[in-house]
């Protein structure tokens, strides 16, 4: 046990610092929203607030609430990972090492179960995507703008997945890839091209639509409850009549479904679809056959 620290246990101060680093980005986001984003008058549904626009040669690059919030989520996740993996020992002793090992084992099990042993290297990517997507959606619990309810974010992820799919389809050479469009019969080629393009589009719209519809419905229900409480309880004397009593507690039930359940479910579904599409795009049989052929050829030339 050469690698263990002399004190045996990692120091508490650094732990506290890392935990603070985990919570500070969220607090910074809330502060930024309070300071810069104008308060909404009554009930309204708006997109991401544009903080400023970077002048670039090809048009301005707007820095929006979406980008800032997703950077904050990334920072928070970075500190969470640092906290979980701090002071690792060969045999798990601390609770956090058990948690970290459980996360890694679950992710690797998920990847090997859905994509096969060949794709074990995908486990970090899938884990990162799950964490980023889930925490981005869960950011709406703090009242901030969830980055996943902006189509630019989910479309970016979907394009990344599309590049991966195309890369794994190209593994047997571009000719094999082009030939796969004409299957099972040649006249279905246009349909195959459409379904190829529809994959990233539907992935982006699915994640974005689910999160956005949740926030739109929450806002509408909150507005309706406010109106209802004004009608029913508006005759109470003084300040009692002005408080929207029905808005207390009831929207929380919706929030549990839309923010907690739906956010985590959509993250899981996005990661699952990524695994299925990328795993399905890889022509495993042809690829391994080609590898064996190459190996046999090499052996033959060596023998000669």
């Amino acid at each position, binding site marked *: 046990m050469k690698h263990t620290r002399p004190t045996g246990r990692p120091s508490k101060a650094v732990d506290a610092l890392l935990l603070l680093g985990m919570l500070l980005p969220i607090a910074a986001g809330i502060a930024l929203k309070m300071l810069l984003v104008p308060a909404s008058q009554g009930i309204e549904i708006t997109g991401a607030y544009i903080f400023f626009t970077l002048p670039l040669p090809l048009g301005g690059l707007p820095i929006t609430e979406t980008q800032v919030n997703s950077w904050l989520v990334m920072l928070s996740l970075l500190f969470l990972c640092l906290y979980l993996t701090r002071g690792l020992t060969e045999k798990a002793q601390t609770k956090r090492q058990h948690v970290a090992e459980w996360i890694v084992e679950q992710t690797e099990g998920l990847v090997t179960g859905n994509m096969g042993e060949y794709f074990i290297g995908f486990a970090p990517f899938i884990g990162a995507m799950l964490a980023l997507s889930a925490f981005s959606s869960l950011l709406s619990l703090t009242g901030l703008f969830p980055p996943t309810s902006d189509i630019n974010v989910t479309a970016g992820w979907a394009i990344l997945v599309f590049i991966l799919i195309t890369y794994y389809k190209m593994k047997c050479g571009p000719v094999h890839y082009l030939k796969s469009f004409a299957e099972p019969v040649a006249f279905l080629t246009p349909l195959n091209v459409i379904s190829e393009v529809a994959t990233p589009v539907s992935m982006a*719209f*699915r994640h974005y639509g689910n999160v956005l519809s949740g926030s739109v419905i929450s806002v509408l229900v909150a507005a309706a409850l406010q109106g209802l409480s004004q009608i029913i309880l508006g005759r109470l004397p003084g300040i009692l009549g002005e408080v929207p009593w029905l808005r207390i507690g009831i929207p929380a039930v919706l929030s549990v479904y839309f923010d907690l359940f739906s956010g985590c479910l959509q993250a899981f579904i996005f990661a699952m679809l990524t695994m299925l599409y990328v795993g399905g795009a890889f022509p495993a049989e042809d690829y391994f056959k080609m590898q064996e052929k190459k190996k046999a050829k090499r052996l033959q030339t060596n023998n000669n």
Partner: protein
Amino acid sequence: MLELAIGIILGCCALGAGSAMIAGIGPGIGEGNAVAAACEAIGRQPESRSSVTTTMLMGCAVAETTGLYALVIAILLIFVAPGMFVNLLMSTIS
């Protein structure tokens, strides 16, 4: 006259958004069927519960896509289309 034109634009956008969401019927029926079949499968083989649930959630997510396309169209019609059409109208008048 201009108010009438803008009113027609706004009303038609709202009507279009409402009728686009008729597409919500399809995923509803489809997901209902999927969950019913999953319940039957779990009832027949309770030990396969976890894998059936995962597959069902995946299937539901894919079936939901058509409904979400309609949602995106409806959101575009409510938040984007009116401003675009009114600007178009103004630019044609002036």
